[in-house]
């Protein structure tokens, strides 16, 4: 499939493939059709995490050039980060030279004035590190924003700035990469949804890196990610569920946060904060989420496995073949799928598949 190489000028005109697991039908639509497809009783949940300026070009011991990508802020003010070999955005990460082998206590320097010390190297991969920057608080965040760029994509026409990747409702900078399913959701559309009665509510989920090009590290993705479910969101979800409304997650990160939070915080969705290591895939029966608004994922991508929690393999195969034949665009700035159950009423949940990682 063809990637969209740059943000498009009219997000509302972007294509939306409506996949209906009830009837098995596929329907070509536009993002602007969402208010007509969703019902007033439905709730659309979005991830309001802003994208970190998480890609930092720097130097390791002996002046070895390297790149780090911030994965997540840790509770003790340090950061988890992935290490890459030298190279700019034009070189796919899997074709980069191997990064230097770092050890704890090694110091990294990011010009002009940011330094960090390696505090821990993960057992998952020597490329997964815990870093402590030498600045804290406002000084650290000022420097991160001055030096860092959002994670770049080699398929792009040119490098991206934060203006290209921040969503229309982004708040705290928790996301390692843009939670891209929310990218076409402009306020014109969100207000139209609300006008029809469909609630649009936020959560914050620290969406991680989509891939690193390193087999061991990619096999461990997604890493545990933190989430925050506001009271109003938990209430909106509960009210909709009680009335047979459907809960639609705008993106795989929202699905992971809602399902993970329900598991971590007592079985049903409540206002809570935490970290989830839930991996949703084939065989997982969702407890909260009835539908998924998502980018167009190729079968080789890890996100594709998550789609099996929302539709059968045969339907997903047909949807993929249709999207490819009809010229749907892929990747972060591409078109979208909406996989939506016909009813929010379903049998009581069964235990899901969860796993520990880290």
């Amino acid at each position, binding site marked *: 499939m063809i990637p969209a190489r740059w943000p498009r000028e009219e997000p509302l005109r972007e294509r939306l493939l409506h996949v209906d697991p009830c009837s098995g039908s596929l329907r070509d639509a536009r993002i602007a059709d969402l208010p007509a497809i969703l019902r007033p009783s439905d709730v659309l949940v979005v991830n309001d995490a802003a994208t970190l300026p998480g890609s930092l070009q720097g130097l390791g011991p002996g002046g070895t050039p390297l790149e780090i990508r911030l994965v997540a802020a840790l509770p003790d003010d340090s950061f988890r980060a992935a290490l890459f070999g030298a190279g700019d955005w034009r070189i796919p990460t899997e074709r980069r030279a191997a990064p230097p082998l770092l050890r704890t206590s090694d110091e990294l320097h990011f010009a002009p004035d940011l330094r960090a010390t390696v505090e821990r190297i993960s057992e998952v991969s020597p490329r997964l590190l815990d870093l402590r920057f030498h600045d804290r608080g406002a000084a650290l965040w000022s420097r991160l924003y001055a030096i860092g760029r959002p994670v770049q994509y080699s398929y792009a026409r040119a490098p991206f700035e934060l203006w290209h990747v921040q969503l229309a409702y*982004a*708040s705290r900078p928790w996301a390692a990469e843009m939670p891209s399913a929310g990218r076409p959701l402009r306020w014109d559309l969100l207000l139209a949804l609300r006008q029809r009665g469909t609630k649009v509510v936020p959560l914050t989920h620290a969406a991680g890196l989509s891939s690193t090009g390193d087999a061991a590290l990619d096999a461990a993705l997604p890493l545990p990610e933190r989430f925050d479910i506001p009271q109003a969101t938990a209430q909106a979800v509960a009210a909709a569920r009680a009335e047979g409304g459907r809960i639609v997650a705008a993106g795989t990160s929202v699905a992971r946060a809602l399902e993970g939070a329900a598991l971590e915080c007592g079985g049903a969705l409540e206002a809570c904060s935490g970290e989830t290591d839930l991996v949703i895939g084939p065989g997982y029966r969702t407890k909260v989420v009835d539908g998924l608004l998502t980018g167009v994922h190729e079968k080789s991508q890890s996100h594709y496995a998550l789609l099996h929690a929302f539709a059968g393999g045969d339907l997903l195969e047909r949807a993929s073949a249709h999207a490819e034949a009809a010229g749907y665009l892929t990747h972060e700035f591409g078109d979208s799928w909406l996989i939506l159950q016909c009813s929010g009423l379903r049998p009581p949940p069964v235990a899901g598949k969860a796993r520990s990682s880290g």
Partner: protein
Amino acid sequence: MKGKGVLITGGSKGLGAALAEELSGAGARVVLVARAEEELRKTVARIRDRGGEAHALPGDVSDKLQAHRIAGAAAALVGPIELLVHNASTLGPTPLRLLLDTECEDLEQVLQTNLVGPFRLTKIVAGAMALRGSGLVLHVSSDTAVAAYPRWGAYGVSKAALDHMNRIWALELAQTGVRFLSVDPGEMHAAAMPEADRAELAQPVRVARWIARLVAHGVESGSRIVVPGEAR
């Protein structure tokens, strides 16, 4: 205001600093932005000495590339921003000039700081407010927005446009729970007014106290409010 995230531009001195002190005293978590780094740090230190929470973000609101740095760093430091105060402003070159003598670049710079900068920051911050169903964006205006004074052309135009943008923001986001206000504090006792008679100027601390009370009470979104003479 207890625990709420507040972002104030032009926060190193005058009304911005006084508002920061007032709001942090009420328990707000305040992020201050200004170009003058040293003054900014002194203001933050003063607030912290009194037990308040404040953070200094040196920055220039007229620079598009700094907008995400300011909003993102602020949200990282104090959580979702619930009150955004657009207080930073520039008069342009002084002594003030007739429009015929105003350089095109000087007018552009005044608009960047006083109008486009606030637009960018609100564009970044207000979407999250609307999604959460609450928030307040406060524009610090001036009587030059409604009265035409010779030599105050660039500044007056920028403030008139800021007032109008305040009304349009309020209309467009009327059903979201986000409120927009424009406040004319009266001429302030601050270094930004080099040509004014200082004896007639308002005291930032008194005005800040009045605005803090205004923030706490429900005022119709889109309003333009003049701080009354007795409150200055």
